[in-house]
């Protein structure tokens, strides 16, 4: 069995890309994983065409939660908000690679949950989006 702790994950954990804060972010959300105490905060700055100009994350926790958040920021930069909302679980998991147990899945998907929470607050949430978030 191959380890989920690939060189890529460890590299993003040690040297996180896009870590920090954006004072003028229009999209902003934060959440924790009560089981592990992982914390992730996401901030996005969008232009008038609703394209993500800049994105930062902040947080603390295990390597999986922090590396996935950093990888996710790279994925959303330059995308329209509409395309950001289409990012799926599978997209994030394929960035991470490897097999995760159910508990660790929560670590891996925390950043996506935070990102989507922020986006839905920005564009308006519906019952469908609420359901999607509770499934993450």
């Amino acid at each position: 069995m191959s380890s989920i702790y690939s060189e890529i994950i460890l590299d993003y954990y040690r040297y996180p890309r896009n870590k920090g804060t954006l004072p003028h972010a229009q999209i902003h959300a934060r959440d924790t994983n009560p089981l592990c105490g992982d914390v992730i905060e996401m901030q996005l700055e969008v232009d008038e065409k609703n394209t993500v100009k800049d994105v930062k994350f902040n947080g603390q926790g295990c390597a999986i939660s922090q590396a996935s958040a950093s990888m996710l920021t790279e994925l959303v930069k330059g995308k329209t908000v509409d395309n950001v909302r289409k990012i799926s679980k599978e997209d994030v998991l394929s960035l991470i690679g490897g097999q995760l147990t159910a508990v660790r899945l929560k670590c891996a998907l925390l950043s996506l949950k935070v990102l989507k929470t922020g986006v839905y607050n920005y564009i308006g949430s519906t019952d469908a989006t609420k359901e999607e978030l509770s499934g993450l």
Partner: protein
Amino acid sequence: MINGKPLAYLDSAATAQKPVEVIDELTRFYTEYNANVHRGVYKISEEATAAYEEARAKIARLINANSPTEIIFVRGTTEAINLVAQSWGRMNVGLGEGIILTEMEHHSNIVPWQLLAKQKGAHLKYVGLTDDGHLVHEDFRQHLELGGSKLVTMTHVSNVLGTINPVREYIREAHKQGCRVFVDAAQSVPHMPVDVQDMDCDFLAFSGHKMCGPTGIGVLYAKKAILEEMPPYHGGGEMIREVHLYESTWRDPPYRFEAGTTNIAGAIGLGKAIDYLSELGLRNIQLHDQELAEYMHDMLGKVRGVKIYGPANPRTKAGVISFNLGDVHAHDMASLLDEDGIAVRSGHHCAQPLMDRLGVSSTTRASVYIYNTEDEIDRLVESVERAGRVFKV
């Protein structure tokens, strides 16, 4: 087999594996004499009742209670604590009075008292910890001497640090001030001889599943005179003497506290688990755990970057070791160990106040029991070393 490797189960502080004798007894009960207890006049009901009451008697002998009537079947330690808080506590703890706890308690020995304190306007007072995970005796004395406290509630053995608390001494001091004492024995009864009369505790609780028994069954011990004064916790069948439309009278303990159909199979299974442990001998189990824990403490302590929490001398603690490696998060550590077939616990271990005191968000915890071997400890240590290489600690 886990991930192609034999399982090394080092999480018995969470729950223990079950011997085939216990599993077989559960099957035998369900296939051969499954019936409700204390009700039927037919043969298998009598058989079930006898086995259920025999389990109670075994528990009484195990902890040297004065009588089986001092043994109440509950779901586990958590329910036992809630029972005492809501029955004894509501009757005996009043406005402005104190409940003394320690900073190393499991959430289950904190939250029920917080609920009671809110209901009654009582105060919680905490005994602090030294840096190496012992109780600060001076804090305890001060809380007692200030007066106004009705109850001391403390764990016998810490589920995080493995610290064995000097409960006997604390109980003696508490009694001098007229305080009752509740002992959370979830981590001690499975691992060492415990004698409630020698300890002189007023209440004591433990869980069957941590001592090779089934889940959903546990024990509350309390002194007879105290039980007799306590009102019921749950109302229902089996716990009543007479029921009228607007009022009922209660049976004597222990039945007063066993409303409805209880976990009969669980109790019988626990009785079998006690047979199993008694045959091995609790003293032998304690020595075995201690030897392994000492070995683990020494070997882990040699790994560069490992910090072990709690008492520095493994001889003063039980078979539970919490550690961290450099800045590797405990969940990453546990996942890496899992890749090597090693099951440990990571997180706050239901003891967030203790984590705050240690200044960490989580630790990795390895705990041992009767079936563990030195070989498994070697594998643990090797795997922790591998984690160090992966994370370049």
